[in-house]
């Protein structure tokens, strides 16, 4: 057992899904041709002035309420100064002393009992542009700047140093991401950088109350990176401490290819940010009526919804957990479950069939599903009233997914109605029994598994349309007489 306790705090940056940028009317969408979504304001032209995007503030309030923060009535923006070519004004409009919200918490489960991780603050700021180097950074002959991303609203959520392991850090990030995605304030895409995470990590001898010297780690663009980088850093710092080395307070970059963190101390990053209140933006008065209005429109959050799904629909914890991973999926399930009197069966079909086709947390894909909830219920009804068999239903599901048609349309066009006519089936059963005399003998000799084979043969002879119940009963009646 390690002699040191790990202390981790995360700074999460979430790009907000507002249509326009934080301080101007330019579109904030990802992926446009370079510098096509810019204006004098987000290019930092002389004389341009910022104007606050009200929707971004609203997204911030939603998030703050969802994680139990106190929303500050007086909000102020501040300028954070450092020189870098991707930052048009060489200062970033951010928040410093008077952030949007403070003192919240996020519930996590990481193997052990559930824990509440404190959130220090939530604040809003503008994103920077993107540098495009011709070749590698160190040797590039030229570099270009794309300001499309400059000014896109960013929300920074800073946790307290409450996390004690890489697993907890990952669990916190996951829980936070689920909330952001659920609120539809961020798409949560770490690879594209719409969700970014920096970590502060320090070690201290077990039992000690003061924190050790912290190191900041950047460039972790997946959950796996976060875990790996923190694991690596724990080993690095442990080794250092055990050999009597001093930990240097610094920023280190995670290099996923070499699986190490690398110090990025350099003149460019030795910052005194010289924060001061943004004189171009008067303090923002977030009135409590506004906060109440946002609170009233807040959707049910994953934790509450999971519990309700278990109680109201009789689902297992596991089922409820998966069905609430995305707000779109939960909405889908709930729409179908309300329409049907067998929510448990709806859940099975969503979990086993629909999620084979769609990712659980992709709201857009779920919303665009070729099988809307009503059509799924229609399919389950055909199965329930015996019109089609379970096996046929699965085929019909796939056809529905391919074509977008209703189950009824496919079943009647393709003549998939279950054959329950005893007369027709009786002939088929007789034929199978005659053709498979050897199997019949095996059965009579006590090999009960042979029955399944015979049922299968009947199903095959009827192209799967036979009612399995009737086939079983007929075989049961006829076999002793052969």
């Amino acid at each position: 057992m390690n002699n040191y306790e790990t202390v981790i705090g995360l700074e999460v940056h979430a790009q907000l899904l507002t249509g326009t940028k934080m301080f101007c009317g330019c579109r904030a969408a990802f992926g446009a041709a370079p510098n096509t979504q810019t204006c004098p304001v987000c290019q930092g032209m002389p004389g341009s002035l910022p104007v606050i995007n009200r929707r971004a503030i609203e997204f911030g309030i939603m998030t703050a309420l969802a994680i139990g923060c106190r929303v500050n009535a007086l909000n102020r923006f501040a300028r954070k100064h450092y020189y870098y070519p991707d930052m048009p004004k060489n200062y970033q409009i951010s928040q410093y002393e008077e952030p949007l919200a403070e003192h919240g918490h996020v519930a996590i489960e990481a193997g052990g009992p559930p824990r509440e991780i404190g959130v220090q603050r939530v604040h809003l700021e503008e994103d920077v542009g993107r540098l495009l180097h011709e070749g590698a950074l160190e040797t590039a002959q030229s570099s270009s700047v794309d300001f499309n991303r400059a000014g896109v609203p960013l929300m920074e959520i800073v946790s307290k140093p409450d996390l004690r392991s890489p697993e907890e850090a990952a669990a916190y990030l996951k829980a936070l991401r689920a909330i952001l995605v659920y609120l539809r304030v961020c798409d949560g895409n770490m690879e594209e950088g719409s969700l970014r995470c920096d970590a502060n990590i320090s070690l201290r001898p077990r039992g000690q109350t003061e924190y050790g010297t912290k190191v900041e780690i950047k460039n972790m663009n997946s959950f796996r990176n976060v875990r790996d980088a923190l694991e690596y850093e724990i080993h690095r710092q442990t080794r250092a401490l055990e050999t009597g080395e001093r930990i240097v307070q610094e920023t280190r970059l995670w290099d996923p290819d070499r699986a190490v963190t690398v110090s990025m101390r350099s003149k460019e990053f030795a910052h005194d940010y010289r924060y001061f209140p943004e004189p171009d933006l008067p303090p923002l008065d977030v009135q409590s009526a506004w906060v109440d209005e946002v609170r009233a429109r807040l959707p049910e959050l994953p934790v509450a919804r999971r519990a309700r799904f278990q109680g109201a629909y009789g689902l297992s914890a596991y089922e409820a957990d998966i069905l609430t991973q995305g707000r779109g999926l939960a909405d889908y399930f709930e729409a179908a479950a309300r329409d049907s009197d067998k929510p448990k069966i709806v859940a099975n079909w969503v979990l086993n069939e629909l999620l084979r086709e769609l990712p659980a947390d992709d709201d857009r894909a779920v919303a665009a599903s070729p099988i809307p909830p009503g059509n799924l219920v229609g399919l389950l009804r055909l199965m329930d009233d015996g019109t089609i068999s379970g096996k046929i239903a699965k085929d019909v599901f796939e056809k529905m997914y391919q074509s977008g048609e209703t189950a009824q349309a496919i079943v009647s066009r393709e003549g998939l109605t279950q054959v329950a006519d005893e007369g027709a089936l009786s002939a088929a059963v007789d034929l199978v029994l005659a053709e498979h005399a050897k199997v019949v003998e095996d059965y009579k000799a006590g090999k009960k598994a042979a029955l399944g084979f015979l049922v299968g043969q009947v199903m095959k002879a009827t192209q799967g349309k036979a009612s399995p119940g009737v086939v079983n009963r007929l075989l049961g009646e006829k076999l002793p007489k052969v």
Partner: protein
Amino acid sequence: MLTALTAHELGARYRSGEATPTQAVTEYLARIDALDPQVRAFLTVTRDEALRRAADADARFRAGTPRGPLDGVPIALKDVLCTRGIRSTCGSKILERFVPPYDATVVARLYVAGALLLGKLNMDEFAMGSSTEHSAFFPTRNPWDLARVPGGSSGGAAAAVAADMAAITLGTDTGGSIRQPAAFSGVLGMKPTYGRVSRYGLIAFASSLDQIGPFAKDVEDAALMLQAIAGVDPMDSTSVGVPVPDYRAGLGEGIEGLTLGVPAEYFIDGMDPEVEEAIRAAIGALEKLGAHTEPVSLPHTEYGLAAYYVIAPAEASSNLARYDGVKYGLRAPGARDLIAMYSKTRAAGFGAEVKRRVMLGTYALSAGYYDAYYGQAQKVRTLVRRDFDQAFERVDLIVAPTTPGVAFKMGEKEDPLQMYLNDVLTIPVNLAGLPGVSIPGGFTQMGLPIGLQLIGRAFDEAKLLRAAHAYQQVTTWHKRKPTMETNPVGRAPR
């Protein structure tokens, strides 16, 4: 000569058919050609643009559909204001070739009003200075004495009106940069309340202090100009939605019964006795018009200058960070890496005064010094504001000199501190965000103009203009003109 007329007189001639905007623009351009080689008020003359717009204005008057009182009026703008398609240098090498892709809100409003842009006016680099000697291109000279400065930083805007090279001009005032050059150049210069006029497109020096305002030949012209540019702007969050009154309508109401405060702190030791005498006389004239005067105290005045020289440079150090050679403006050649590109560009692009203030401001905002400098200066700012609040509980307006002295000789104030002292009586108004106007209030025996400053409550520009107008009804200082023609064209005296 149409150039000698005020804008409202010119408008009357257009409406009566005695003159056309094209005639006026042609005369103004000819006068700029004749006089500006001496005065050097213009950085850019937009000849074709002015004539093209004048032709459109001619047509409107012919059709009997002029847009309003500024239609066809030839104006010029301090080069701190962004003009679409017309270079806007801010008096700096770093923006020497910067052509904005957009108009400042005030410029857009003036175009809509039908005003004709003659050109862009010289200024101290980034509006930092009180003499226009800190222009990166050349100094502007005072039309009353070409060996003297016109004041600054809006020296070009003041000199252009004084020399009849534009009917009205716009300048900006951060610590006195409209009122002080107006006083030195013998014209009216007005700084509106902070938030009264949109700053969108004004190249920022100190964002919490900068405000755009007019230079004019008389109060009525100033009222017309303020009317055109005032009002809330969705592009400037610090602009304020207080309704804009009809400034010209109230001008004739007089000042009988108004109480004017006379602050003892504005008659400082070492001020020019001729200035003091003129201002005392002006106060007498205002009393004769029926105003009651009483002493008021603005006890924190003496700390205003120090607070200003922390706050303004701090904001400037931030506002000027964007000039880095990456996106627009100058990029110095020969840099081998990013840091070198920044430092070479800024070393070559900024003049000494700008560098001095950027360093001052950077220092004031630095970790460990912030509270002692920036924090403390903000407290002083609050005290200065409170001084005015208390005074305005008892008085309607404050009357004082604009500057302790008159226009000084070029090169006379090489010590930056000596230069900074010029603004000691104008800075408190900026710190408090109040409106102030300087109008001609007399002349020295040598024939140099003296400025009378009136200060009002926030958003009470109407009363300021009313008092200034009343004064101009009983005085003729504002009608005096410098005798420019006596100087040989094209040669500046030493």
